[in-house]
């Protein structure tokens, strides 16, 4: 049998820009020693890039010695991880029971209508991404809204929501 010609080596993540790939590699290098490193790595990637790009999945898989299916399975399992770049601000509205008891359903409907988007979508001006969240632990003072990583708002009325969005749009400029 004739010897097989060596296959040309394919880049692991061909569609990932070099600078992004370097960033992802760095994040992985800082955490690969952790037992069960995948979740900490995905958190760090999302913290650094705002999302976990599909194109980064092969790189993460390769570096952690996992299959792409395993990494994709984990990214898609957890609500927290997004695979598309968010707007400049992420606004999360609590949908859970304690907030429902104080008007969260009406707030959710109001938010979708005034922003003109559904959950997991971004406004046309790129300012706001709307997401659902199931409990922020602020169950005594709902409806609760979380802006970006840690700015929590209590007893949010539709009017206050509009004011909040107005402020975020200003900041976004």
């Amino acid at each position, binding site marked *: 049998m004739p010897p097989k010609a060596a296959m040309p080596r394919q880049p692991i993540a061909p569609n990932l820009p070099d600078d992004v790939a370097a960033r992802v590699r760095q994040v992985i290098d800082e955490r690969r020693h952790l*037992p*069960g*490193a*995948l*979740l*900490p790595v*995905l*958190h760090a990637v999302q913290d650094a890039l705002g999302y976990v790009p599909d194109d980064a999945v092969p790189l993460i898989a390769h570096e952690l010695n996992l299959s792409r299916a*395993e990494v994709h*399975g*984990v990214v898609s*399992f*957890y*609500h*927290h*991880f997004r695979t598309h770049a968010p707007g400049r601000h992420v606004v999360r509205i609590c949908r*859970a*029971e*304690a*907030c*429902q*008891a*104080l008007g969260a*359903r009406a707030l959710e409907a109001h938010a979708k209508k005034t922003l003109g988007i559904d959950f997991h979508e971004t406004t046309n001006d790129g300012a706001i991404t709307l997401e659902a*969240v*199931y*409990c*922020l*632990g*602020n*169950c*005594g*003072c*709902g409806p*609760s809204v*979380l802006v970006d*990583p*840690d700015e*929590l*708002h*209590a*007893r949010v009325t539709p009017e206050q929501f509009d004011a909040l969005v107005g402020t975020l749009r200003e900041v976004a400029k």
Partner: protein
Amino acid sequence: MTARIFISRDSTALALGADATARAIEAEARKRGMDVTIVRNGSRGMFWLEPLVEIDAPAGRIGFGPIKASDVPALFDAGFERGNVHGLRVGPIEMIPYFERQERLTFARVGVTDPVSVDDYRAHGGYRGLDNALAMGGEDIVKAVTESGLRGRGGAAFPAGIKWKTVLGTQSQQKYIVCNADEGDSGTFSDRMLMEGDPLCLVEGMTIAGLAVGATQGYIYLRSEYPHAHRALSEAIASAYEAGYLGPSIKGTSKRFDLEVRLGAGAYICGEETSLLDSLEGKRGQVRFKPPLPAIKGLFGQPTVINNVITLASVPIILDRGAEFYKDYGVGRSRGTLPLQLAGNLKHTGLVEKAFGVTLRELLYDYGGGSYSGRPIRAVQVGGPLGAYLPESQFDTVVDYEAFAQVGAMLGHGGIVAFDDTVDMLEQARYAMEFCSIESCGKCTPCRIGSTRGVEVLDRIRAGIERDKNIVVLKDLFETMRFGSLCAMGGLTPDPVRSALQYFPEDFEVRA
């Protein structure tokens, strides 16, 4: 002497403007050339007073609240730093009836101390439990926890001592202590308040658990929705390492314990212990078959103690004051205290730590002060999204694991969510199914598909399509989910739906 002013760093206090209040007080004090130290403590758990500002006075801590940033100059004008009378003065905090009538054991320091200071923690009785534990053998520690009657506070109420004993008796090179801090039930926030208000208590409890069973590594699996708890825990763990309470040689002994916080990623199911373990291992958070029990094959296949935050945080006081002291609180087989969380449509929401035995009605009206909206309370959901909805006729149920089970309900993690008479119980039932369909791990069919079918059936009932037949289908679905699901998620999702149908049948009638 520098005046000490306390303003909470608790999430709810922050959501109500505590940071702005703290900044205003700092600025005002500087303007007036006054020397003040601001301590960012936990919350006392009286949310209608947040942002609560407390000062040290000869007679004890005097509170003012709620204090918005705009109230601050007037507060200084009235000489509040010396505890003088002011319109928003609520007086000595510990004499407020809501607070005075509680039995604060696990929450004794929350809202009192600087949460991340080891010195402050020690000055208020902290680490006395660990001191005792260091002088005891593992068997004796486990015996104390067993004798205290402490049951898992996460919801399942399994005796903590029995779990620990199993891990202690299983031989292995490596064992783990895992804290379940994935407090996903709506209406619950006691874990969060403890982690933000007294995180060292959890650190101490986990360290004691490590000594008890011979585990050297602990993980706190914290939900990602709790960024402020994450910050407080990280600071507290760093302080504990610095003070020699964590690391290779605990307080100079040959005992080792290391502790790390890991973040979840927004999956309710990861509050189920075996899903949590899979998640910690870096996988999808899917439920495992049991056996093997986590106590025998848990994290990375090793013997693992996995307990809820409040369970572990109740351990220091048991080791400090003794099993008998703790056991003296409570009724029947429910011993000790339970931090109850008053949430939803109530006037006085917050945290009430009481010995078992208080009634739901007392909690709703004597503590909660009735509804926030001023309308009648129609329904109460206890125990999170998998808990039953109870009508007024059940409000005399006693807070006790067995008493709740008797009325087809569940105490769970102690969250109490009140709804006024504007609630549509069919909508709540539909949401219970919808939530299960969103959060199901997908491993078993009754949960994954059953919940989806449940939403559809309830939509048909709402639309008046063959209502009676669909009620039969719905009840059949309850049985399939209850008996066919792998874990409590699918197994208990029928409970809120069934109870809504049972107690509020009028909401399931065809609308005229």
